[in-house]
């Protein structure tokens, strides 16, 4: 199994989720993060005090997938999240050793 982490632009969430659902994913976890990267931030100004904000609001999607679904999922995320402009984000893949469903205690790929 793999643990996939994707950093995307917030307004792309719905597209990504739909693409992933189509790729056979039935569960994902999303959190709000701030990203620092090539995409330029903006300036904030309060009573003359300027402040360069380099961190942009992004969403982090985390999903556990079985090995055989990995490629489709990566493709789905990429398609759903892409705008072609800088700052679209990244996808990272880690190895996942074990998964368990809390409700039932089952483990393995069937829990995903």
């Amino acid at each position, binding site marked *: 199994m793999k643990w996939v982490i994707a950093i995307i632009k917030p*307004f792309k969430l*719905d597209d990504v989720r739909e693409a992933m659902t189509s790729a056979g994913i039935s569960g994902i976890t999303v959190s709000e993060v701030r990203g620092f990267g090539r995409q330029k931030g*903006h*300036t*904030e*100004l*309060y009573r003359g005090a300027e402040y360069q904000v380099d961190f942009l609001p992004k969403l982090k999607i985390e999903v556990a997938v079985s090995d055989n679904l990995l490629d489709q999922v990566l493709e789905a995320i990429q398609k759903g999240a892409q705008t072609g402009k800088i700052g679209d984000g990244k996808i990272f893949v880690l190895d996942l050793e074990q998964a368990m469903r809390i409700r039932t205690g089952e483990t393995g790929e069937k829990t995903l």
Partner: protein
Amino acid sequence: MRSRFTLGLTALSAALLLWPALVMAEGEAPTLDSGNTAWMLTSTALVLFMTIPGLSLFYAGLVRAKNVLSVLMQCFAITSIMTILWTAYGYSMAFGDGGAMNAYIGGLDKAFFNGVTVASLSGTIPETVFAIFQMTFVIITPALIIGAFAERMKFSAMLIFMVLWATLVYAPVCHWAWGGGWMGKMGVLDFAGGTVVHINAGIAGLVAALVLGRRKGFPTSHMPPHSLPLTVTGAGMLWVGWFGFNAGSELAADGTAGMAMAVTQIATATAAVTWMLIEWMKHGKPSALGIVTGAVAGLVAITPASGYVGPIGALAIGGAAGFICFFGATSLKRAAGYDDSLDAFGVHGIGGIIGALLTGVFASPALGGAGFKENMDMASQVGVQIISIGATIAYCAIVTFILLKIIDVIVGLRVNDEEETMGLDIALHDERGYNY
């Protein structure tokens, strides 16, 4: 708004009346009444309170967090700019003497409050108080419009539009109804601003929503209000402040002011409950946003009627407003497909029309009202109301449309896509609403 004296006379016992009556008979001008002045100073504060913070919070809660400051800023800037405009020439255009053109527009004799001194009276209150009470009306009316184009209009274009609109639409229509113009002469009943304020703002909003087009993503992606507690707070403030709006429009602390306040309370509550019940029946659950929207619809609808109708009229007007505005802000908007972001038209336009119309009905003494204008019956009064509503709609729609088109060519009305996605707060004001 009618003289305190007409009413006062009815209410006072003969003995006490004797002396002032004699004085008045000799043609003396009315003198300053400290009680009336106290109430009008208070009312002015209350109506300003309606815009800042009232309306600005009501609207601010409804937009997404990334646009919260843009809305607050628009309301605050409008408050400031309109104050200057009204001082410079607005008051004069609306309430000054227009000479030969007086049926349509006032003159510039009172520009920069010329001749308005510490000693000038307007009825029984200082003219300064009358002028700034009216100023709070020219502040809230443009502020209402922003609900229609929230989350996408340029701040600069908004400012230009509002200055022109207040000059070319608000001031004339205000003069027509209250400043000695044709509408008032014709006998329209508009106690506190059904045509001048709400229909005017609602129609301008609708035209703006159509000219600017929909927000990116509307209606497919969801744009939930970012903070309903702000909205409910704003609605409460509007309700409280509206007492100044309606009961203040009597320009005196008397029986009519008292009745205006009572019917305002009753109509608002009735509209709120009506909206709540319809929503409960249609959707299975009543919502906080629903009940407060209903209350605002009731406040709007009772506005033109407030000095003319009684409790029964208030119940009827409140019920009608809750019922019809519900469909205006939900079904009608979805069916027609325009993006009146915060329902400026659905609530103020439609509510204003309902109120202006029903004022002609429930002013009837038979229905507990204060009576029609001289020599009128219900039919003729309703006729006059319809003409006034129609004229306001037509004039406002045309001029608003032209103004927006011109401004679009010169500076552009909308922010670009990237700015809209990023949010107007960062894009236009370099600040963020929240830094938790």
